[in-house]
C-alpha cells in the first residue's frame, strides 16, 4: 500500500516533467510543474514516513525491466527514512520554485528544460531509493545524474557553467562505473542482481574488501568526500538555487543512502579497517571542507564546501558505527548509525534552507560575492531570520538540530574506550578532536556569512535595491527553519521513531533513548549523558523573561536614545570601513596557512593618489595537485596513442593481421 503511494509520487514527478513541455508561458508551466512536484513530494514523504514507522519491509516486482530481470522495488525502514528526506524537502522547495523561476528565467525554452529535468531528477532520486535490484538502481542512478547534469548546465551560455557541468558529469559517470563494478562483485558471487540474492552471497574476505573499496569510491564521488569533492564547489554556484538546494540537501543524502545500503544491507559483514577508513576520510572531509568554506567569498561556493564538511560529519558517524559493529558492540554501532542518519536529515533541512536563502539574496541583490553584500537584514527581515536559524543550526549550536547530531556523534566517539585495540581507540580520540575543531570553525564560518551578508552596511549599490521575497519563497524558508527548530527541541521523539532502522539493519535498537522521560535525550544511559532540549529552550526563555521584566521599570524611565555610530572623532564612517569576508577570515588564513594554495598580491600604488591594490585568491589543493596533473597525464597519453594512427594503409593492414593472429591464438 505505502509502496504504491511512493510509486504514485514517482508518477507525479514524471508527470511534472511531462506537463512542462507543451506549456506556452513560463509562469503557468512553473506553477503546474511545481504543484505536481510538491504533491509527489508529499506522497513519497508520507509513504516513506509510514515505511519507517511500521518497520516492516514491503516488496514488489514490477513487470518492467529486462526480460529476465523484472524491476524489483522495496520499502524498508532505511529506504523509508531517505524517502522522507527526499520527499519532504522536495515538497517544501516546490513552494519556493515557482516565483524563483519566474523571477530569474526569462526564456521559455530554458524554463521548459529546467522544469522537465527537475521532474526527471526528483523521480530518479525516488527510484534510486525504491530500487531493490542492481539494474533498477543503476538506471535510476543514471537518470538522477544525467538529469542533474542538464540542470547544472542550465545557463549554458557561460563557459564556466559548461565546464562545471562537464566536470560534474565526468565524475558522476566515473562514480557510477565504480558502483556498477561493486554490484558486479556482489552479483558474481551471488546468484543474481536482486538485493536479496546479493545479500545471500558469501564473499571471500579479499573480495569483500574490493567490493567495499569500489562502493566507497563510487558513492563517495557523489557524496563529495575529500578528495572526490571537486565537482561540488563548481557545480553548486552555477545551478539555479532551488536546484542547488535539492542537489546539496537531498542528492548527497541519496549517495549516503546508497553507501549505507551497500555496506549494511548488502555486504552485511564489517571489518575494522573499513571503519578506520570511513572515519579518517570523514575527518578529513569535515576539516578541509570547513576550512575551505571559510576562505570563500562566493556565497554558494561557500555553502558547497560546507556540504563537504557535513558529509564528513555523517561519514564520521558511519565510521564509528562500522568500527563498533566490527568489534561486536551492536548498541554503539546503532548509536553511530543513528547519529549519522540524524545528521543526514538535519543537513537536508538546514542546507536546503541556506541555499534557498542564498537564492533569495542573489535574486534580490544580483550579487554572488559576499564582499558586495551587507545590510540585507533591514531589507529582507524574514529571509534574514530564517537564514539566521540555518546558520545557528549548521554551526551546531543548541537548541537547534545540528547540535543534536554532533552531540550524538561525540557521545558515540566517547564510548571508544570499549574497543579492544589501542590504535583504533587513538584514532577515535583524534576523530573527536577533529570534530570539535570542525564545529568551532563552522561557527566562525557562519558568523562570517551572516555578519557580512545581512548585517553592517550595504557594500554595493545593487544591494540597496533588494526587498523581501514573495510569499511562497518566504513560506518554504519558514517551514525549513521550523523543521530545524523542531528537530532540535524534540530529538528524543524523532530518534525514537528512527529506531526501526538500526533494528532492521543491525538487529538492535537504542532502548535507552527515552529512559529518563521524553524530556531528556539519553542515548546510552541516564547517567552517562543527558540533554533536555525542551528544558534548555524553556530555561533560556525564563532567564530572558526574568532579565526583561527586571529591567522593565528602567526601560520606561529612560527609553533608548538613537544617535550616530561612534566614529572615534574622525568624521563619518563609510561602508568601506567595514570588515569584509576576506579580512574577517584573515587571522584564520594566517594560522592554517599551508592548508590552501593562496595567491596573494599587493600591487604598489602607481601614483600618489592611487592607494594600490591587494588581491587574494584561494584555490584548492585537490584540484591543483591531483586533478590537473591527472588531466595532463591523460592528455599526454592520448597524444602518445595518436602515434599509432600514421595514416599509412600498410600499417593499418598490419594491425588487423596481428590482431587476427592474436585472436586466433586465444580462441584455438
Amino acid at each position, binding site marked *: 500500500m505505502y509502496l504504491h503511494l511512493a510509486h504514485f509520487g514517482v508518477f507525479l514527478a514524471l508527470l511534472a516533467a511531462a506537463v512542462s513541455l507543451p506549456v506556452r508561458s513560463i509562469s503557468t508551466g512553473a506553477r503546474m510543474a511545481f504543484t505536481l512536484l510538491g504533491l509527489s513530494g508529499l506522497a513519497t514523504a508520507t509513504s516513506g514516513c509510514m515505511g519507517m514507522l511500521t518497520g516492516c519491509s514491503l516488496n514488489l516486482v514490477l513487470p518492467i525491466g529486462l526480460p529476465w530481470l523484472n524491476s524489483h522495488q522495496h520499502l524498508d525502514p532505511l529506504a523509508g527514512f531517505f524517502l522522507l528526506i527526499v520527499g519532504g524537502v522536495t515538497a517544501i522547495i516546490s513552494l519556493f520554485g515557482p516565483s524563483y523561476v519566474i523571477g530569474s528565467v526569462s526564456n521559455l525554452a530554458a524554463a521548459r528544460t529546467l522544469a522537465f529535468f527537475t521532474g526527471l531528477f526528483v523521480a530518479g532520486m525516488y527510484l534510486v531509493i525504491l530500487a531493490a535490484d542492481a539494474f533498477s538502481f543503476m538506471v535510476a542512478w543514471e537518470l538522477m545524474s544525467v538529469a542533474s547534469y542538464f540542470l547544472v548546465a542550465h545557463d549554458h551560455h557561460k563557459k564556466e557553467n559548461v565546464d562545471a557541468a562537464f566536470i560534474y558529469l565526468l565524475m558522476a559517470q566515473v562514480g557510477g562505473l565504480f558502483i556498477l563494478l561493486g554490484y558486479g562483485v556482489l552479483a558474481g558471487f551471488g546468484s543474481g542482481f536482486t538485493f536479496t540474492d546479493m545479500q545471500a552471497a558469501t564473499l571471500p574476505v579479499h573480495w569483500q574488501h574490493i567490493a567495499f573499496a569500489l562502493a566507497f569510491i563510487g558513492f563517495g564521488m557523489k557524496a563529495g568526500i575529500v578528495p572526490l569533492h571537486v565537482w561540488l564547489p563548481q557545480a553548486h554556484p552555477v545551478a539555479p538555487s532551488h536546484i542547488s538546494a535539492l542537489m546539496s540537501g537531498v542528492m548527497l543524502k541519496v549517495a549516503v543512502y546508497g553507501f549505507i545500503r551497500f555496506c549494511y544491507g548488502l555486504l552485511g559483514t564489517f571489518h575494522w579497517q573499513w571503519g578506520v577508513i570511513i572515519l579518517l576520510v570523514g575527518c578529513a572531509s569535515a576539516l578541509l571542507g570547513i576550512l575551505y568554506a571559510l576562505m570563500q567569498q562566493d556565497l554558494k561556493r561557500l555553502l558547497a564546501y560546507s556540504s563537504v564538511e557535513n558529509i564528513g560529519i555523517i561519514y564520521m558517524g558511519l565510521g564509528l558505527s562500522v568500527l563498533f559493529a566490527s568489534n561486536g558492540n551492536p548498541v554503539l554501532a546503532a548509536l553511530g548509525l543513528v547519529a549519522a542518519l540524524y545528521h543526514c536529515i538535519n543537513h537536508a533541512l538546514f542546507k536546503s534552507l541556506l541555499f534557498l536563502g542564498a537564492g533569495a539574496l542573489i535574486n534580490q541583490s544580483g550579487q554572488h560575492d559576499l564582499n558586495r553584500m551587507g545590510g540585507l537584514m533591514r531589507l529582507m527581515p524574514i529571509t534574514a531570520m530564517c537564514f539566521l536559524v540555518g546558520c545557528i543550526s549548521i554551526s551546531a549550536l543548541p537548541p537547534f538540530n545540528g*547540535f543534536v547530531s554532533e552531540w550524538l556523534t561525540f557521545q558515540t566517539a566517547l564510548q571508544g574506550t570499549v574497543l579492544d585495540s589501542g590504535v583504533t581507540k587513538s584514532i577515535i580520540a583524534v576523530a573527536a578532536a577533529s570534530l570539535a575543531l570542525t564545529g568551532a570553525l563552522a561557527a566562525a564560518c557562519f558568523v*562570517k556569512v551572516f555578519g557580512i551578508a545581512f548585517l553592517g552596511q550595504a557594500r554595493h549599490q545593487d544591494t540597496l535595491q533588494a526587498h523581501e521575497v514573495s510569499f511562497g519563497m518566504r513560506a518554504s524558508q519558514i517551514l525549513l527553519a521550523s523543521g530545524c527548530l523542531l528537530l532540535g527541541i524534540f530529538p528524543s521523539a524523532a530518534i525514537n521513531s528512527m529506531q526501526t532502522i538500526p533494528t532492521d539493519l543491525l538487529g538492535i535498537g537504542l532502548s535507552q533513548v527515552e529512559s529518563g522521560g521524553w524530556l531528556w535525550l539519553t542515548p546510552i544511559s541516564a547517567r552517562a549523558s*543527558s540533554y533536555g532540549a525542551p528544558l534548555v529552550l524553556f530555561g533560556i*526563555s525564563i532567564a530572558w523573561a526574568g532579565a526583561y521584566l527586571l529591567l522593565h521599570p528602567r526601560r520606561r524611565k*529612560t527609553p533608548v536614545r538613537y544617535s550616530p555610530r561612534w566614529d572615534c572623532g574622525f568624521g563619518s564612517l563609510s561602508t568601506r570601513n567595514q570588515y569584509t569576508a576576506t579580512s574577517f577570515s584573515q587571522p584564520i588564513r594566517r594560522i592554517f596557512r599551508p592548508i590552501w594554495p593562496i595567491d596573494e598580491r599587493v600591487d604598489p600604488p602607481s601614483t600618489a593618489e592611487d592607494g594600490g591594490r591587494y588581491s587574494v585568491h584561494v584555490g584548492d589543493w585537490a584540484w591543483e595537485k591531483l586533478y590537473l596533473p591527472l588531466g595532463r597525464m591523460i592528455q599526454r597519453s592520448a597524444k602518445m596513442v595518436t602515434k599509432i594512427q600514421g595514416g599509412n594503409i600498410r600499417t593499418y593492414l598490419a594491425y588487423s593481421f596481428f590482431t587476427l593472429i592474436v585472436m586466433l591464438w586465444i580462441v584455438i
Partner: protein
Amino acid sequence: MNVSGWILALGQTALLILLAPLLSGWIKWVKCKFQNRRGPIPWQPYRDLAKLFRKEVVMAQQASPLFRATPYLVFSVTVLASSIVPAFAVGLPTAVIADVIVMVGFFALARFFLCLAGMDLGTAFGGMGASREVTISSLTEPAMLLSIFTLAMTFTSTNLDAMVLHTLTQPFQIYPSFIFAGMSLLLVGVAECGRIPIDNPATHLELTMIHEAMILEYSGRHLALLEWASMLKMLIFGVLICNLFLPWGTALHLEPTAIAVGLLTLGIKLMGIGFVLAASESVLAKMRLFRTPELLSLAFIIALLGMLGHVILEVH
C-alpha cells in the same frame, strides 16, 4: 518532583549570578596589591553595574533588532549555563538538563550572537573584534572539549554532576592525563574570559582589543548585562576548573551542614583560583595578537595528548 532540590538549584543559580561581580572585584583587588597599588574595594564591580543600569542607553541609528536582543540572549544563556554547573552540591535536578558538551555549546551560542552584534553596525572595531574572537574561539573551544573528554572517558559520563560525584565517591587516584587536561583547561579559561596574556580586560587600546571591541557600541543596561554575563562566565570557568579537578568539599547530600561546608569550600577555592589568576596576570605581559594562536594551539595539543594518553595508557 523534588521540590527542595529545585529550590536549591534556583538558589545556586541566583548565588552564582550574584557572586560573579565579587570574583572579578577580588581578582582586581589582589592584582592591585601585587602591583603595590591601593586598588578599588572588591565590591566595586557591583557599583559599576548599578551605575550602568541607571544610565541611559544610547544606540546607533543603524542598529538592527539583533543588536538589541543580543545582551538579553547572552545573559540568559550564561545564566542557564551557570545553573548546570555543580557548584556547592551534587545531585541538583538542573544538572541533568545539559551535559558538559551542551555547556560548551551555550558559550558558543552566546559568542555567536556577540560576534554578530559586533558586526551589526558596520564599524571597523566591531568587525575586528568579531574576527579575532572567532579565530581565538576556534582554537579554545576544541581544546576545552578535548580536555573535558579526557575526564568524560575516565568517568564514562559527560554529565558534570556524574563526573564530580565519581571523583568524590571513588578512592583517590592520580591520573596523569588529568594533569594535561587541567593545564589545557586553565589556558582555555584564561583565553575564554579574555584575560592576560590573550586579551586585556582593563584596556581600550584599540590595537589589542578583542572582547571590548565587540561591545564598544553598547551602553547603559545593555552594557551592564554583557559585562555581568562575562563576569558570570569567568565564575563558571572558575567553578568548573575547581570542581572537576578538586571537587572535595562539595555536598554529596542536600543537608544544611553539608551545603554549608560546600559553600565554604567553594568560596575558598574560588578565592584561591582568583589569587592564582591575579598573580599570573601580574607577572605576564599581554601577547602580541598573532602570537596567541601558538599558545592556544599548545592548549589544543596538550588536551589531545592528554586524551591520547588516557586511551592508550589508562584504559584497560
